[in-house]
């Protein structure tokens, strides 16, 4: 049975032929797919990898978060017990959440704004200097674990760079344990994470600023733009929304995924969990205590948190673009 293609699906629904509608829909879908099979084929590798390495693990984690899984025996279903424990009993979780939010709220936005501001400044330079400066700012995130040099700079040894300098100047008399003393280590980590924040977002800003449509500036000048600030607000930013969005996503995900740097510099776990984040909390339960179920619960929570903040930022930026 073949229906004319122009019959719309709601027609069928109205007539109550639900099955018919599905069949038609299916047929049309298959037709479309086979028509565009080249595109699907090209998408396939990514889709497969994305499913296998991202979607399925996320789903598995969601399922595991309701179980007690010790990595050796079959998971036992425990209902919401893990979630109760997470929100009601786990004191370290609160510290980790606090720190994660501190990183997200301080290093996320500041890093994001810094990326943009530096990109904007750099954009004014002649292209050769711009290339060099871009490389300089991007280098820290380009070179994998380069944050290790901070363990030398902030070394608790009396010959550590900062301690040595401070002692030489007579400001302190005994070396400060920058990385293990709870008075300092969170501050040090915020600083290091900011230093690392010139990542992909920064690069996309640099690229976006260079591809600006110059004619708009001229038009804006005629329309009465008076200064650089107005130019930035009304011309540059609206044009840059795709990049800003991309930058925001990477900046959020990196702000919430802060952890490995802390682990490398302040120890795992850090003194009194002072630089513990949700990611580290997850690792602690997963790899040290072998409580995969509970670790999955933390992961699901972190996932939800990231999703929410992304939605929030998305809304904020859509206002900027004016639609």
């Amino acid at each position, binding site marked *: 049975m073949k229906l004319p293609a122009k019959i719309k699906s709601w027609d069928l629904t109205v007539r109550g032929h639900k099955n018919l509608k599905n069949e038609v829909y299916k047929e049309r879908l298959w037709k479309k797919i086979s028509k565009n099979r080249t595109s699907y084929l090209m998408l396939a590798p990514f889709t497969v990898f994305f499913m296998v390495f991202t979607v399925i693990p996320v789903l598995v984690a969601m399922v595991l978060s309701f179980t007690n899984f010790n990595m050796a025996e079959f998971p036992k279903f425990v209902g919401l017990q893990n979630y109760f424990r997470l929100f009601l009993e786990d004191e370290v979780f609160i510290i980790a959440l606090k720190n994660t939010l501190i990183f997200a709220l301080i290093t996320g936005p500041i890093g994001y704004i810094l990326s943009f501001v530096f990109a904007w400044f750099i954009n004014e330079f002649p292209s050769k200097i711009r290339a060099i400066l871009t490389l300089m700012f991007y280098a820290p995130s380009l070179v994998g674990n380069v944050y290790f040099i901070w363990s030398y700079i902030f070394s608790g040894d009396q010959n550590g760079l900062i301690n040595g300098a401070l002692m030489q100047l007579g400001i302190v008399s005994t070396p400060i344990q920058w990385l293990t003393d709870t008075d300092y280590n969170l501050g040090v980590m915020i600083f290091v994470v900011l230093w690392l924040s010139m990542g992909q977002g920064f690069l996309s800003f640099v690229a976006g600023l260079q591809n600006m449509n110059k004619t708009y500036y001229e038009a804006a000048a005629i329309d009465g733009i008076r200064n650089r600030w107005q130019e930035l607000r009304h011309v540059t930013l609206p044009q840059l929304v795709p990049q800003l969005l991309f930058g925001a996503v990477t900046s959020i995900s990196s702000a919430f995924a802060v952890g490995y740097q802390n682990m490398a510099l302040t120890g795992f776990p850090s003194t009194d969990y002072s630089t513990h984040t949700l990611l580290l909390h997850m690792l602690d339960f997963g790899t*040290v205590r072998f409580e995969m179920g509970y670790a999955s619960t933390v992961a699901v929570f972190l996932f939800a948190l990231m999703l929410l903040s992304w939605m929030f930022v998305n809304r904020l930026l859509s206002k900027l673009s004016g639609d």
Partner: protein
Amino acid sequence: MRIIHKEGKKLNKAISGITAIGLICSVIFSNIAFTYCSADIVEDSLSNTVSEYSSYRIYSQQWEKEPTGKDSIIFNADTFETCEKNIEILPEFEGETNVIKLNEEIGYVTYRFSVQKAGKYRIGTYYYPVATGGTFEPNISFLIDNEIPFEEAQTVYLPKIFVSETDEIKQDKQGNDLRPRQIESPKWMEKDFIDNIGFNTDAFEIYLSQGEHTFTVAVTQEEIAFKSFKIYNVEKLKTYDEIKEEYKTMGYKEAEGEAVVIQGEDAFQKSHSDQYPEANIYSPNAAITPSDPAVTKLNIICGSKSQSSISWKVGVEESGLYKICARVLQNDDDKRGLFATRKLYINGEVPFKEASNIEFPYKSDWYNYIFGGEEPYLFYFEADKEYTLTLECVSGRLSEPLSVIETAITELNDICRQITMVTGVNPDLYRDYDFAKEIPDLFDRIDAVTNQLETAVSMFEETVGDLGSSMAEVEDILRQLKKFRKNPRTIPEQLSNFRVSVSSLSTWTYDMTKQWIAIDEITLLPRDIKMPRAKANIFSQSWFDIRAVLISFITDYNSISGAEGNRNITVWVATGRDQGNIIRNIVDDEFTPKTDISVKLSVTNPDNMTLLQATLAGKGPDVAMFVDKSQPVNLAARNLLVDLSQFDNFNEVTKAFYPSAIKPYEFNGGVYGLPNSQSFSLMFIRTDIFDELNISIPTTWDEFYKAVPFIQRNNMMIGMGGDNEGSNLYLFETLLMQKNSSFYNNELTKTALDTVEALDAFKMLTSFYTEYSMTLSYDFFTYFRSGIMPMAIADYTMYNMLSMAAPEIKGLWTVAPVPGIKMTDGTINNCVSTGGNCAVIFRSAADKNAAYDFITWWMQDDIQSRYSFDLESIMGPGARYNSANISAVNSLSWPKSAKTVINEQWKNAESFESLPSSYYISRNINNAFRAVVHDSENEREILNKYSLIIDNEITRKNKELGLDSKGA
């Protein structure tokens, strides 16, 4: 392109790396680095020499004019006049009669002899280096007329003999050559006393006046049997020209037949165990014989240490004169623009003067070198006679300038100390110290030492020509000295920089005595034969490389395959590849043939996650070795491990260990791991500094506290482990044990940290840092070496590291047991905590008995000894293995005093139980420690707070794992 993969080299690089970092640090932040760490005593230790005695160079200058002695006095070793302890004269030892055997414990023996004709004499001995299984060099020291004639007389080196265990090189299943073990093969030898570092190439010449003299000798390292001593001197060696004349008169002609090729790797004896057949990985070359793109071929032999030697056997079919040509690689970066030198012996004798300095120039690639260079030397070989060719590492023409620099270093250190005595430890940069008045001869001395160094530079220039960057260290010092001279006001400011420069100069000097060469083959060349190319041509090299790349795709590098048997087990070892290969060899030699069980060995890193995941996926091993001590209980609690105590002979097997080694693996009435290694701490002491401060080595904490102010008053530090999770816990455990307390209550359901003893221990731990302000963060090796930290608690395996990698403080340090608490009965409780790793068997293993046989076999005395020996003979003596097997550790060569201390401390080592929630203890003790040390919290409150947190976790974890109240 060149890969550096020599053990000695690595060490050397590490040392210069450390120095370089120090240098950079001090250049950037002038004065920071060492401002806080010096008293005049430190000066002394920064130097590489003990300045009490003059060096041999000065000694020999003093007696330069004296004639060569004409007497030849031989006295038997058993004719001594006095001795320190009773010595047994062995009527018969290894084929010789009336022999004495000396070692560290026995002390010295003294002989009396009389000299007829005054003059300069050599001292030689006929000795036998007793095989101790050790890789330390035998050292002796000697006195003449009850005095040390010069500083070098304190460590005279007498070589051992090492040979490959088998002449044939064995192959593994894939056809890779397996490195043969190097074993000692001692015999009676003659040797003249000679400088062991290599600043002097010839034997010591000692001036003896006419009349009676005494000669005293003591063995300071290893064990040596002596037959006789000889005071004599030798004729000057003939020059090559004279030898050439001799050839003419004898009518020798150049041989015409075939070339005789000896492979470098076929050396039949060596002086050091780290000279073994190697595979050429230094500079790829398809022309090296033998070569194969697919498998490892041992095709070269290397050597670098001063006084080390390698010997080959050779014979010719046609009598006549031959040239000697070697295919070598000499691309040591330190010797860029310079040369490495060898002394050639034929049948134990240097044939002519020039042969004692065969120089191999620096080149980035392999090359053929004909001894003599442009005008090749000819050597006479008789047909059908066996000759021994020996190449010995010497400093050659570099030795003279190096010894000048070495003397200058002593002087430089002395100048440093003089200045520090005026300026104090922390010089005031804004004060004029008026050095000219305070140290009247300071500038004369600076001039003199500048002069000395300039002489050395010009000597180098004469020898080498263009210096390039090779003398950067000397020039650095010269620049600083000139600045001192020109503007004395900068001295206080420059002092710490200067000190670093001096110590890097002494490291450099030591490095320069090393003479690295790789030898592929040595050829005796008749007249008309040309050497084949030293380097493969571009086509064959490319073809070789392409095949090597292709084959790399199908080779499995992770598993090390071996002999096959009927039953199978899979073993994961958490070690490096070299260790993996050693284990493979031992398994193939001793396990599989006897038991018919084949072992599939994989080198992995079985940390907690990898092991769990692999087991979960059904891909796990049957046996995992070198698993960290916290793991077995965790795995056992999840029902993954086999309880070893249920095997029949388990109690027999465990007799090889101390109970403390097994305790961490006990859980729920079973034992889930068999210890592989065990580590514990000792106290490391710089005896030179202690002597100078006039304090004795503390045995109790009371004495320890008394010694602390003496050390700290002189701005030196004490290392108690510092602030990190492992060492905080370790020290706390140790103190708890000394107070007879524990972490847990008897039922292991709660912590026992609310006791008075625990609080005491905790207060003691934190007071090291709060009240005694000991350093929270330090680098033990560097600080101890430089004398900044004369007392520290560190792992006992550091003993080897220090004796191998810090030659400049040789004899200036010792080890002692960790301080303890004096008990009421007068004994001292100096328990220490121990750590380690172990072997476990997984429940999933199909053949559990085979797996058990394997791990019990592995932990046997002889197998553990062999593993430790092989490790040292292949990876160098720095790679000491801390086996948990008591007799294996004792079978290694330790200086006697160290061995006693180690055994004593080991007996007093203990271990707490492990719980699945142990991870929570270490992190919370650490938290508690830091709360007190950083935030000055009250110790009792903090300890209570954290013990409560730990208790909760123990309860929760036990519940989660379904354990009853008695966890372990």
